[in-house]
């Protein structure tokens, strides 16, 4: 496995794991307070929709000329990467409250108990689980598609995403509770750095620039973005009290 392929797999695995943790919390909340079968059915249907999206768009993206593909993919990865990084920096710096799975679980459970439980498929459990998995998974699906298409290895990206989901579900089954100990913000920070690094690299290449040293420039770029982000966190921390965790 080459360096960029390994980075691709790590970025997709981490991005998928962190989104899977959030989706898992919601499915666990509605499943345990209402109806497990309906919640799992909703989650499974959403996973199938995401799979169809990747299977349909993956081959279409790979036939684009490499220059256009890198420009579009680089731009999209930059938009996503900077969104992840911005939130992670604000949270790490204390300017935005940290995401807390235990609090999110509590709030989802309270909301789930409000509606009356009917016979057959519980539409509330189905809808909430479906929406959670689809919305949390959509960004991951795009990361799988963009990274995979650019490296001409959508299957590797899809495999990394699937492994992350399996790992989160396994950890959840062992814990039998929301995965509150996962250092979500650190993972989001790492994913943000990786997405931004590849976004800068591929975006500039797609625009016609040539990197000194080719792919060897990637570690230097990652270090630069990491250092810049860390400096922003450090400065935010210097002037702010820490905020209480937030549910979402």
């Amino acid at each position: 496995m080459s360096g960029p392929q390994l980075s691709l797999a790590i970025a997709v695995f981490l991005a998928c794991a962190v989104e899977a943790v959030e989706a898992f919390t919601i499915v666990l909340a509605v499943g345990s307070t209402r109806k497990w079968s309906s919640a799992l059915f909703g989650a499974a249907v959403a996973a199938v929709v995401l799979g169809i999206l990747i299977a349909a768009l993956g081959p279409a993206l790979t036939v684009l000329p490499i220059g256009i593909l890198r420009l579009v993919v680089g731009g999209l990865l930059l938009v996503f990467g900077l969104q992840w990084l911005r939130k992670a920096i604000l949270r790490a710096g204390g300017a935005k409250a940290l995401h807390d799975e235990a609090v999110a679980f509590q709030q989802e459970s309270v909301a789930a108990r409000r509606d009356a439980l009917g016979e057959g498929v519980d539409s509330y459990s189905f809808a909430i689980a479906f929406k959670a998995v689809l919305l949390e998974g959509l960004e991951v699906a795009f990361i799988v598609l963009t990274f995979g298409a650019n490296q001409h290895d959508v299957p590797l990206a899809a495999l990394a995403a699937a492994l992350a989901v399996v790992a989160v579900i396994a950890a959840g089954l062992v814990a039998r509770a929301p995965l509150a100990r996962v250092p979500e913000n650190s993972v989001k920070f790492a994913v943000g750095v990786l997405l931004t690094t590849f976004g800068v690299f591929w975006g500039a290449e797609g625009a016609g620039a040539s990197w000194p040293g080719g792919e060897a420039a990637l570690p230097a770029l990652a270090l630069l973005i990491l250092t810049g982000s860390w400096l922003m966190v450090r400065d935010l921390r210097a002037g702010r009290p820490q905020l209480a965790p937030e549910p979402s």
Partner: protein
Amino acid sequence: MRGAALGIWEFVVGDDWRVAFGIVVTLSATALIAALDLPAWWLSPIATLAILYWSVRRGSGRSRLMTK
């Protein structure tokens, strides 16, 4: 239809449209410099950190960041 368009906008552009706009400007400028046969690789990393800096600054509500 309007809801779908808003959803796509929200998904792609996110909560700070200036970031997406800055990226479009950066990649366009990179393409322009490269078309003039000049080294263009340096622009994206610098512009990206600048875009992130301004976005974090707006998000934190601080008027000055990274200055003590």
